[in-house]
């Protein structure tokens, strides 16, 4: 196997070692933590701002429009301007709203998405925490966000919000299953639940290629289910602006609304990066068996770019969904899950297990 030129493990270890050598253990830990915290915070904010901009541009091009083009060249500072505007806007208190839960909801959605990011391997050795049950952890944390949505809708003292929250509840209990089961399919193939090991297992070929049809089906199901889990169109029933005006965040204003908005995009980023990690080999470059020269060239592209590129492709597909399809109705949403995705998923797992048992995978 080719030597990976962008291995960051030694760099991490070096930083760790220098800090602990030169400072007392407690302070070293504090500094290290702060560094990581600030780095992730910056990354989080940048990705959020970029995704909002990307969504606006993508939908504009799909709709024969130009999109934001006034603030900065091609409007790239538009989202920053929007963020500043939202920060300066008035926070309107709502009569008879449950104040505590109303304010708690944005915390929950942001914390859930921020904690999920911790486990994502951005490159070789470039991850905050490498759990041995990484898949499990991501599943658990990313579904926490919906508690925030439920709280937001429930505490707003608004009928539209409540209906939106109820829809969101029904949606999450259904689509959580499909996300989990399609992950099981990949875990069978990889034989591990550690995200870094799963990526490593795809060194010779991404699972979407080596896993035959079951991996492809699992990928499709994962994309559909995770789109639903992040409350994005065509599954955006919880906000459904033509029915419920703005659904669960109708009563949120200013920066509190901005957090829901940001969390939606970050959740999209998280599920897209999980999809890229599980199915498209994470930060692994594209290798084609036998083409040594091609493979070497591919290796020179840094893994972080590979990773981001794959994630962006998945995100683009999700945006493409949103700007093409009409919204489903709540009973159709559940019908899709329980009558289509779940049986297909169960069948798919058996198929994958058989393939692995018989050694048909590459």
């Amino acid at each position: 196997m080719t030597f990976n030129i962008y291995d960051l493990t030694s760099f991490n270890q070096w930083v760790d070692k220098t800090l602990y050598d030169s400072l007392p253990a407690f302070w070293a830990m504090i500094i290290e933590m702060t560094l990581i915290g600030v780095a992730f915070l910056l990354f989080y904010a940048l990705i959020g701002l970029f995704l909002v901009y990307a969504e606006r541009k993508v939908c504009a091009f799909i709709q024969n429009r130009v999109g934001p083009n006034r603030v900065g060249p091609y409007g790239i500072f538009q989202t920053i301007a929007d963020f500043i505007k939202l920060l300066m806007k008035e926070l309107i208190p709502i009569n008879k709203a449950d104040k505590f839960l109303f304010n708690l909801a944005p915390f929950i959605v942001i914390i859930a998405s921020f904690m999920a990011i911790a486990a994502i391997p951005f490159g070789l050795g470039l991850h905050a925490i490498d759990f041995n049950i990484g898949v499990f952890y991501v599943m658990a944390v990313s579904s926490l966000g919906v508690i925030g949505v439920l709280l937001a809708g429930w505490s707003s003292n608004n009928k539209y919000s409540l209906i939106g929250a109820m829809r969101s509840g029904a949606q999450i209990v259904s689509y959580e299953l499909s996300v989990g089961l399609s992950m099981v399919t990949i875990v069978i193939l990889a034989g591990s639940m550690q995200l870094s090991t799963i990526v490593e297992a795809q060194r010779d070929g991404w699972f979407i290629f080596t896993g035959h049809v079951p991996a492809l089906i699992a990928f499709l199901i994962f994309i559909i289910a995770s789109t639903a889990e992040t409350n994005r169109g065509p599954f955006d029933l919880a906000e459904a602006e033509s029915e419920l005006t703005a659904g669960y965040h109708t009563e949120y204003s200013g920066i509190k609304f901005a957090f829901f908005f940001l969390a939606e995009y970050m959740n999209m980023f998280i599920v897209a990066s999980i999809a890229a990690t599980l199915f498209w080999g994470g930060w692994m470059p594209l290798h084609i068996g036998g083409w040594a020269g091609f493979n070497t060239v591919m290796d020179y592209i840094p893994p972080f770019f590979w990773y981001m590129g794959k994630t962006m492709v998945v995100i683009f597909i999700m945006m493409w969904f949103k700007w093409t399809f009409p919204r489903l109705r709540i009973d159709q949403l559940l019908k899709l899950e329980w009558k289509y995705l779940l049986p297909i998923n169960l069948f798919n797992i058996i198929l994958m297990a058989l393939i692995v048992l018989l050694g048909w995978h590459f």
Partner: protein
Amino acid sequence: MNSESLILFFIVASVLVGGALIFSGLVAPRSTNPQKSEPYECGIPTQGKTWLQFNVGYYLFAILFLVFDVETVFLFPWAVIMKTAGIAAFIEIMIFFLILGLGLLYAWKKHALIWE
């Protein structure tokens, strides 16, 4: 990094939200108006109680979800050792699947999968 450092992420996210809320509370204008803080209902004052009882349908789906989610939890350990455990574990999990599949079929036939 070890998994205890998850607390770090928790704290950083809380600081992000809390800090932004506090900052916004400082810089944002404030003007009170009795109509402004009314919940939005298309310009008409809300009639009756906002909080209502949940539909029974939610309860049914929650039960179904519980059944299948527990199943997923059972599936993960099997999935990890699938390659080493081999055919015996496969047959055992098939029986497990069969029972669950029958359960799903039963619910299907009983029209429990239709949202009311």
